[in-house]
């Protein structure tokens, strides 16, 4: 069947951007082959380094402009600094960064406490919205949490262990 504009008249704009020259880099890249001249462009004014900024060791310097949010600090910061000894090619770069992120969460809670703030995890997790729009899911989720934590408490207390062992062993006795 012919793919004529008439056939697709019901679709506004059909075919108006069709381009037979669409090759693997065209038109995403306006191929000027500038890279062949290396790291040689006129750099923008360099931002002053007022806070500690880690940079990938796959480049020689900081970029001309960078974010200054949350410089590395505490234990998570130490892990992040270590991670930046390794290139983006290495797990030794990325895995420690994820671990640092998790450590940072604990640091965040401690920091809240130090500022006299008790984080309202129920609202931070947006559970009020889930309560409103998908109550069943939230109840199931909370029930799951309750079951797991009760089981954990029972298992950790000797009392729970004994009780469970009794019931399990009974049929065999």
């Amino acid at each position, binding site marked *: 069947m012919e*793919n004529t504009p008439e056939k*697709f008249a*019901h*679709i*506004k*704009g*059909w*075919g*108006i*951007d*069709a381009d037979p020259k669409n090759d*693997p880099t065209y*038109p*995403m*890249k306006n191929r*000027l082959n*500038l*890279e062949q*001249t290396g790291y040689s*462009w006129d*750099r*923008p*004014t360099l*931002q002053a380094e*007022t806070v500690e*900024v*880690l*940079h*990938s060791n*796959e480049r020689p*310097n*900081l*970029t001309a*402009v*960078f*974010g*200054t*949010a*949350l410089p590395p600090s505490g234990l998570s910061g130490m892990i992040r600094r270590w991670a930046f000894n390794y290139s*983006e090619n290495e*797990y030794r770069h*990325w895995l420690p*960064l*994820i671990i640092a*992120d998790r450590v940072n*969460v604990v640091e*965040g*809670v401690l920091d809240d406490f130090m500022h006299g703030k008790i*984080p*309202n*995890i129920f*609202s*931070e*997790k*947006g*559970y009020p*919205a889930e309560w409103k*729009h*998908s109550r069943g*899911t939230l109840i199931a989720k909370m029930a799951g949490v309750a079951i797991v934590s009760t089981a954990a408490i029972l298992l950790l207390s000797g009392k729970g262990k004994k009780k469970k062992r009794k019931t399990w062993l009974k049929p065999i006795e």
Partner: protein
Amino acid sequence: MLAMNYRGPKRVRIDEKPMPEIRHPEDAIVRVTRSCICGSDLHLYNGNVPDTRVGTTFGHEFIGEIVEVGSEVTKVKIGDMVLVPFNISCGKCHFCRQGLFGNCHESNPEATAVGAIYGYSHTAGGYNGGQAEYVRVPYANVGPTVIPEGMDPDDAVLLTDVVPTGYQAAEMGGIQKGDTVVVFGAGPIGIMAAKCSWLFGAGRVIIIDQYDYRLEFAKNYSQCEAYNFKTDMDDPVLFIKKITDWMGADVVIDAVGAEAAGDAMQTITGRKLLLQAGSATALHWAINSVKKGGIVSIVGVYGPTDNLVPIGNVLNKGLTIRANQASVKRLLPRLIEHVLNGVIEPKKLITHRIPLEEIADGYRIFSAKLDNCIKPVLIPPSAR
């Protein structure tokens, strides 16, 4: 000022934070009037992007008013209402000069494999984002674009990411007139990719997701076929083969990325254990359902380590893979035209307007796909 504050996986809140400051002569400060939550934010929200520091403000899709400019800013002035591309780009490096504004080499010191993105972890430059009342906008001569007279702010905010990304997804598909295009993911990006596929002359457009409400929307908005991979089929690849005369699609677009559902092994290793850089289910399906010699276009975002995909099939089928963060600035002139001419109507995607103060609920609604959510927009108090 009020700003979103990331506290850990799936924990965010709104807090008072210090006002952003000019740190570089090409900086501007923007008073945000609208910002969005994006599928990309979910990778951060779920704690899957390395070097996401507690205290970060997310938000890479925003518009607002210029309230302060550095000494080298000449292209915009105080009082201008601007839309700000999500990529931070210098305009001078070799990559920017060739139109690769998402791959700038002068804005993200932390990683060479990713450009800089507002509010997108330190792996993307360590900038705070626009889910706040004010935000620092570097390279203000390059990114911020004055919102054209008469353009609805809801359309403008979607031009910062959703429209260019959906458009580039279709563009990278190298779609020729009559091609069959399959789009995995009926989120804002997939819906826009399906819509834009027609602009390049697609002959047939098929979208696949797991949520009927999104598929229903896509069917109407993107004027395409829509199928649910949970209820309409057992095996999506086989299904696509069957409905394409056993050939596969000419072009398959991955508009899902790292949070993909649909394959337990991928979900456990990619999303729960983080042994891969996210779950690559949709990409796996894309590679296997495209025709021999076909093109896979990836805009779904994955992390910086590895993913399990059938690369042997890419080789044996002779596939072309094209992928990138959208180069928003490159595409804006064309897309502003399309929006002003009514060819694309972005604001129809917006289902939720959420006060900035209720951001935690906003994230939960968008992440868990509650209340038939497609695209949520956050409105700061000063813009209400």
